[in-house]
């Protein structure tokens, strides 16, 4: 096999592969920076919780409208936003911390979703919602993915400073009268949007992987935020492309292939990362003079 056959021919020959590639790249553009902020705000598990939370919305839409991507996306979006807003409001109104409320709401939401699907759907449907299929991404889905990526990048650019300050020193923002809660909510809505965008391509459970794995890896390479964003983006984009190739050549499901590729990048970073990677820890015994 020539390099061309390995690296590009699948995309040249098949429209569904091109769609899948463009979809994955769009998804990576939005997910990577979102994931990095999740990691920095110590909310790594929040993405996971939210991915479960959108399930009942998608399930209800599936039962009502069949396998319609639009309906399922809107359903998932509504369920995700309800959980985000409800957990946020309960956090502000009561003693409970945000993570506990998110856990409570997503579990209720997930259980409802599973209940709905098993009562009115079939197991095949459930598998589809849980694990998605990037190879079924059509033109309408591509437009949706591109729109989400664009929205994410624009909103992140606008809220960048507020998000950084909210993460670094929330009390300072509060004392300056800056409404940190707005930045926080805007960010959580972006998380939901990206998960909804991801679930049809990668499945609800896999979508989180494209957020968290590149972000966690990036912390091991760069020391400043802009550089971290670049590294996370790079790893996410490459994982999408390489993962699709592996899935095509190996005849493997696409979602897990993409996430496992990102997982490999994570393990590689753990070993080699310039900022705290194991190799450098092991080598860096000699201390400096000053």
């Amino acid at each position, binding site marked *: 096999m020539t390099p061309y056959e390995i690296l590009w021919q699948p995309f040249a020959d098949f429209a569904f592969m091109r769609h899948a590639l463009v979809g994955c790249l769009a998804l990576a553009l939005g997910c990577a920076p979102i994931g990095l902020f999740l990691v920095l705000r*110590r909310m790594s598990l929040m993405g996971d919780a939210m991915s479960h939370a959108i399930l009942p919305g998608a399930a209800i839409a599936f039962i009502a409208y069949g396998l319609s991507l639009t309906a399922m996306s809107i359903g998932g979006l509504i369920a995700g936003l309800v959980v985000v807003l409800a957990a946020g409001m309960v956090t502000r109104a009561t003693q409970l911390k945000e993570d506990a409320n998110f856990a409570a709401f997503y579990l209720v939401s997930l259980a409802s979703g599973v209940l709905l699907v098993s009562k009115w759907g079939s197991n095949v449907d459930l598998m589809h919602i849980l694990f998605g299929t990037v190879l079924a991404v059509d033109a309408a889905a591509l437009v949706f993915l591109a729109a989400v990526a664009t929205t994410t990048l624009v909103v992140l650019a*606008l809220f960048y400073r507020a998000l*950084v300050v909210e993460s*670094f*020193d929330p009390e*300072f923002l509060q004392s*300056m009268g*800056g409404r940190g809660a707005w930045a926080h909510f805007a960010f959580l809505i972006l998380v939901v949007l990206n998960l909804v965008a991801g679930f049809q391509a990668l499945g609800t459970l896999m979508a989180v992987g494209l957020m968290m794995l590149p972000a966690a890896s990036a912390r091991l390479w760069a*020391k400043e935020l802009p550089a971290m964003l670049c590294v996370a983006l790079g790893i996410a984009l490459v994982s999408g492309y390489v993962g699709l190739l592996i899935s095509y050549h190996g005849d493997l499901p696409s979602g897990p292939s993409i996430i496992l590729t990102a997982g490999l990048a994570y393990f590689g970073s753990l070993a080699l990362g310039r900022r705290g990677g194991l190799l450098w820890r092991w080598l860096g015994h000699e201390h400096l003079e000053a």
Partner: protein
Amino acid sequence: MSHHHDHQHDHAHHPAGAIRLSNLTLTYHRHPVVHHVSGSFAQGELTAIVGPNGAGKSTLLKAMMGLMKPNHGRVERHGLAPREIAYLPQQAAIDRDFPLSVQDAVLLGDWRNSGWFGRISRSARQRADAALERVGMAGFGGRPVDELSAGQFQRVLFARLLLQDAQLILLDEPFTALDAKTTADLLAVIAGWRREGRTVVAVLHDYEQVRSHFPQTLLLAKECIAWGPTTEVLTPANLARANGMPQNWDDDAPVCHRDDTGAPTTPPAHDHTLHSH
């Protein structure tokens, strides 16, 4: 319990207060941590707040910042918006691992001008460099904050305060866990604020430090024990009273009716069960 509003008698001697507490009561779960405190912070002066742990010192600063609503009474800021007050809380809430450069951390002090979306002006950058120099951190601008020691980090936060250019500066235990050199340098910054006519209120524990650097003191033990010139406040008798503050948590404490006047049949003017304030 005998209680005298000593400070109300002192009050006439104070210059016009930049910020005034009037019969201020702050509570957690209905239990008062600051109880019926009145008085003014002398404008353009350094005031220390001292008192035992749990005396309500940090809570009082939060209320002065507007971060906590009084259960009763008022904080009168005389036209100072909260954002014109600089506030340095205890370090707990800051994520010191965050990938931010020292210069960016200092430039947050320019928030009043830059806000969420505004650009950082060249003069703000110059002021940030000057502020770093003033706290003895010249040349550290490009370093990430996660490489700083606790002392260096506190210097950076003081540089941020300098950039905020506030008329009223609230410091919550600013020297805890700092060495003598760093403490002396930062005390010099505070003395500079006094020369510039700014009002500084600092929660402190070191009586010697307070005596030698802070002309005014508020001795707080939930109640105001004494408030005025430091030499008159930090007397053995006052300190003994402050340290005698009851530490136990009384679950069945009765509702406070101290402000009630007149016949006992009138509805209570101050009732901690009513959170309508």
